[in-house]
């Protein structure tokens, strides 16, 4: 583990927000890990934000509340923060700094890794090509998650994104291959944290899940560490342990707010909506840790969940996330109001890697055609519904009316799913077919004739 320097500095000159300025230090490097011991013996930790001659500016994870510069002793680790990594994390429930919440001993391991990670060489990346099945029908069929992909869930306040995130974390699998989940909750209320813990308990008990919970009242700086901790643990489980690992990170908006808060405390020049100018790069340094590597087993798939403040998709957090990630799953208030769970807006949702990760030999031969046809039919249905609102149902053609029927069936039969229901891909595909067959054969031009024959598609019903 971390070996602390012999020297303990007692020369804290200034405390401001989450920052402590230590004077008279020598040889302390940027981004180095620091330990602060209070007069009471309580220990806190931080990172060096700036090393200027004999000054070190330390940001304190636990916050500076209750600190008195007089009694404070600071020592430095000599390196950037490293954490123990290994299988010992599986089955554990920890806070956002990786300290146990489950009453167990601290996680220890012979190997450690830097929390910031090191970028994967782009030429060593293996293009993602196999699916992760989430057991959520609408996602598996229409926006298939691919191993090594980063696919965010865009939600808004009041929508059941946490429920969906925990359901995916509890159910996802890679059909027989070793699979585990790292769930990082950031800025969760205590009620939400308890909910996540209960929902994920069985999988954690089975030794397949790591749960990191940063609550809304925990210091903001801890929140900046939480996703890095999760990804570092995941990378080791994947590329050394040979597992396919899904990292669920919720809520990235809380994370970005923490980043903004720290940036403001550091007096940095603000960019859009006062978020720091490096928000894009910072988010990329998290999301880009997904992927697969040539010659190594395992994969890291990242599923960030974020709430769009005011439902605004042009807000910097969803906007920059969209520029980095490979598609998005958008939840809609309208679907939610109609009682559909999960309330996925399939027309705004997209998995850019789906074409590579689904289809013959990966999921099912008819998967991509069915998905494309279903999306096209839903797009047509939406147009028809707008038309119907204007001119009335009476003016619609028979084909238009069938599309309205399809939309109804889509919500009820296909998209809706129980909150603890694990739906197999075959079940979901069968439902997709049933929905599609609402339409006459002439409206199903994107499906090959032999498939239509096999499913008994006809003109009349």
């Amino acid at each position: 583990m971390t070996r602390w320097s012999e020297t303990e500095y007692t020369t804290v000159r200034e405390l401001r927000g989450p920052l402590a300025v230590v004077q008279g230090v020598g040889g302390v490097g940027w981004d180095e890990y620091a330990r602060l011991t209070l007069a009471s013996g309580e220990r806190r930790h931080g990172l060096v934000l700036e090393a200027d001659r004999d000054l070190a500016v330390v940001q304190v994870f636990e916050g500076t509340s209750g600190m008195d510069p007089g009694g404070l002793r600071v020592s430095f680790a000599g390196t950037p923060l490293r954490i123990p990594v290994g299988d010992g994390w599986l089955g554990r429930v920890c806070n956002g700094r990786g300290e146990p919440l489950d009453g167990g001993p601290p996680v220890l391991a012979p190997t450690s890794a830097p929390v910031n990670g090191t970028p994967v060489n782009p030429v060593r990346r293996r293009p993602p090509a196999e699916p992760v099945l989430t057991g959520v029908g609408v996602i598996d069929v229409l926006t298939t998650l691919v191993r090594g992909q980063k696919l965010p869930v865009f939600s808004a306040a009041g929508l059941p994104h946490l429920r969906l995130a925990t359901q995916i974390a509890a159910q996802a699998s890679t059909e027989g291959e070793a699979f585990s989940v790292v769930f990082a909750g950031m800025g969760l209320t205590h009620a939400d944290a308890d909910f996540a813990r209960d929902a994920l308990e069985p999988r954690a008990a089975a030794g397949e899940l790591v749960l990191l919970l940063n609550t809304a009242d925990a210091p903001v700086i801890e929140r900046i560490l939480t996703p890095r901790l999760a990804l570092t643990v995941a990378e080791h489980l994947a590329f050394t342990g040979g597992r396919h690992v899904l990292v669920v990170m919720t809520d990235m908006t809380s994370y970005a707010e923490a980043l903004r808060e720290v940036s403001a405390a550091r007096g940095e020049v603000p960019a859009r909506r006062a978020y720091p100018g490096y928000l894009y790069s910072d988010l990329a340094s998290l999301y880009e840790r997904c992927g697969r590597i040539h010659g190594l087993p395992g994969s890291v798939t990242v599923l960030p969940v974020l709430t769009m403040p005011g439902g605004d998709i042009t807000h910097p957090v969803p906007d920059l996330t969209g520029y980095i990630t490979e598609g998005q799953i958008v939840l809609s208030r309208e679907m939610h109001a109609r009682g559909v769970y999960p309330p996925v807006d399939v027309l705004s949702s997209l998995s850019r890697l789906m074409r590579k990760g689904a289809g013959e030999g990966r999921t099912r031969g008819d998967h991509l055609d069915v998905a494309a046809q279903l999306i096209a039919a839903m797009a047509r249905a939406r147009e028809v519904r707008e038309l119907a609102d204007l001119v009335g149902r009476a003016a619609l053609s028979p084909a238009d009316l069938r599309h309205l029927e399809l939309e109804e069936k889509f919500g009820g039969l296909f998209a809706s799913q129980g909150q603890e229901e694990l739906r197999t891909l075959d079940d979901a595909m069968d439902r997709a077919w049933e929905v599609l067959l609402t339409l006459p054969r002439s409206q199903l031009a994107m499906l090959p004739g032999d498939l239509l024959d096999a499913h008994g598609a006809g003109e009349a019903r």
Partner: protein
Amino acid sequence: MDALTAAGPPESGPGPATIVRVAGPLVELTCSGGVAMHDLVRLGRAGLLGEVVAIGRDTATVQAYEYTGGLAPGHAALPRGRPLTALLGPHLLGGVFDGLLRPLSGAGDRLVPGLAPEPSRDDGLSFSPRMRAGDEAGEGAVLGEAGGPGPVPFRVLVPPGAGGTVTWIAPEGRCSTREPVARVGRTDVSLTTEWPVRTPRPVRERVPAREALHTGQRVIDLLFPVAKGGTVAVPGGFGTGKTVLLQQIAKWSDADVIVYVGCGERGNEMADLLTEFAGLEDPRTGGRLVDRTVTIANTSNMPMMARETSIHTGVTVAEYFRDMGLDVVVIADSTSRWAEALREFASRTGALPAEEGYPAELASAIAAFYERAGAVTTLGGTRGSVTVIGAVSPPGGDMTEPVTAHTERFVRCLWVLDRDLAYARHYPAVSWAGSFSRDADVLDAGRARPGDTAAPAPPPGRARVAALLAEADRLAGLVDLVGITALPARERISVLAGRLIREGLLQQSALSARDAFCTPEKTAALVDATLAVVDQCTRLVDAGVAVTAVEETDFTPLLRAREETGPGDAAGVADRRDAMLGRLRALR
């Protein structure tokens, strides 16, 4: 080359310096003079690379290109006494490099700071001299050609500033990048050369760009063409198909060399691009596409400051091939990430922020980048060009944000990607209302020059297509209000014409086996077919045929023509036009 060799003592110049401050990529040194702006510095024990960006009375400010974790005041720094240079040579073609032009293929799975991988030394090239000992060779003159695996003719030139009598030249046969191949005056010339990345390579003169870059994308070649040597910005929000469009151009445009700069973009996308290019054939030469491509991959999680450099490195590589008399296209995806790196560093140095935190010099930095494009007469007297295509990622799709707004002013062409078009699955989602090409007129004039047989005839019907689209857009607003049935017959045909042009002519699927790229001949045939059908429809309604009958005609033969015919199959398109016209005549 300095950027690539381990930290040894510099030949001359400044002595060692000491680090006094580290804040992320910003590092301050004490120095005793002898350090110049933009000089390269190696920092700390790992020898991290950095560049001097400001010099004070007794300190110099350095921007580090790599992660500086663990770097502390008191650590040593070694100014190298020379700016960041790129090692240019035959190893570039088909290679993948980081923003400092260090080869990535030799590096490990993960990019550890301070790495200094050497470019592979190639001994397997064949050299054929074009000059003999005793010949006079000025700067830029072609000494010989080195053949590699690819189709690009690799010419060995007398470097800028050198020249004189050829005192020795290697004979025909195998050669190595290690050894010189000629001696001109007092300069040894080898297959490789070095050039500081922030300095444009000299040319004899700039010449007007008159030849069109054929991109193979109909909407561009027809409506918004760009000249070889022109500049293009491609603004588009996420999900508008920006990267796909740029990759299509990288694959199919008729340039000799493509420099693809992945600047702060997705790692998986880069991996996908590399895999795909390796398997694709160049339709013009039959060789592999990858052999005419230089890829600079600085993905979004790689150090931000190397991202800033990658743009300059990319253009320098392009200028190098241009000097061989080649047409080069630089594709930078995305310049917004580069601008963000500028902003990030400016804020660390405490520079006064201008718009949205960007430094005040943003506009001049963007201008300087695009100005390195151009058609030129090289020092050796041949023609070459660098075309720059830069993606812009406006935050929130806001086209008034500083990077987009400034870029628009400095480019000759703008291909705006429209979210509504992309949402309607209309790809490429190039907006005909928001885009422009200032090259179009010049190109048409150039093509019309008498006796110029090399240049193809201007695509007919551009003005007509643009006018029909504008008319259809205007009417679409009206249709939403009053309904299509309230419009007179002629206007309803205009609405129909808009649809036929959009679906039958402008849409082009990057995934299509036959239509991913399109020759000028097929484009012309499709324009001709579409306009002929529109004219026929107009004549029909003028002759009293009910407009609903025309509207309800099945236009599939016309709309499927682009998909069903091969990239150069103009005759196939004409057949389908005639079939469609026949179907329409039956309405009378």
